[in-house]
């Protein structure tokens, strides 16, 4: 079965608001997670990653939070823009064995 999964298939937010996309995982030994953005008709694009020795990591307008106690991670996008509209996947990085993806959350931006 899946080792990672997202809570909501669709998330609708107003332009300019912050977006929070959630992901849960089941394997407590998991230690490396990546968030990908996939626009329509394109391959997944790396956004940000986090390892289990960290609780938080920030990038440009994005923050990933990792709560190992409840096996949950989230992606926060600040000041959401129309270009942020996409499907967002969390994935567990198994190293050479590849990635295990969740099902994805479709982020819809309302004008």
């Amino acid at each position, binding site marked *: 079965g899946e080792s990672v999964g997202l809570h909501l298939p669709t998330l609708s937010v107003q332009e300019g608001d912050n977006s929070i996309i959630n992901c849960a995982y089941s394997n407590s030994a998991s230690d490396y997670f990546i968030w990908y953005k996939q626009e329509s*008709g*394109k*391959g997944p694009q790396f956004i940000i990653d986090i390892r289990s020795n960290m609780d938080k990591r920030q990038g440009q307008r994005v923050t990933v939070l990792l709560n190992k106690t409840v096996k949950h991670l989230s992606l926060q996008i600040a000041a959401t823009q129309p270009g942020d509209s996409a499907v967002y996947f969390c994935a567990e990085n198994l*190293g050479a064995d*590849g*990635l295990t993806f969740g099902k994805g959350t479709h982020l819809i931006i309302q004008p």
Partner: protein
Amino acid sequence: NAGVTQTPKFRVLKTGQSMTLLCAQDMNHEYMYWYRQDPGMGLRLIHYSVGEGTTAKGEVPDGYNVSRLKKQNFLLGLESAAPSQTSVYFCASSYSDGGLAGGTDTQYFGPGTRLTVL
């Protein structure tokens, strides 16, 4: 750099036909991967390679074969296509297996090949 490229972009096959999908990367990456993505789903790993001349099975390998004769190329073959193999296929490559060698282990994806098997 072109990054990761895939050919063809689209293909329609009849049941039982064979075909090969080509993936090429110009980033000198050691690791390469083939995934499939079905509607409303995340990507699932088919096969992968940790170096030239090596291949390994992923989560859903049945019905597919792969070859990595050159470091920059990773081929995915369907010997006898079935409707269940209708999907979008993505290739990816990465530098290392977890940053142990000090390099990035981010996987870079190609644009995908949309395959329909009738």
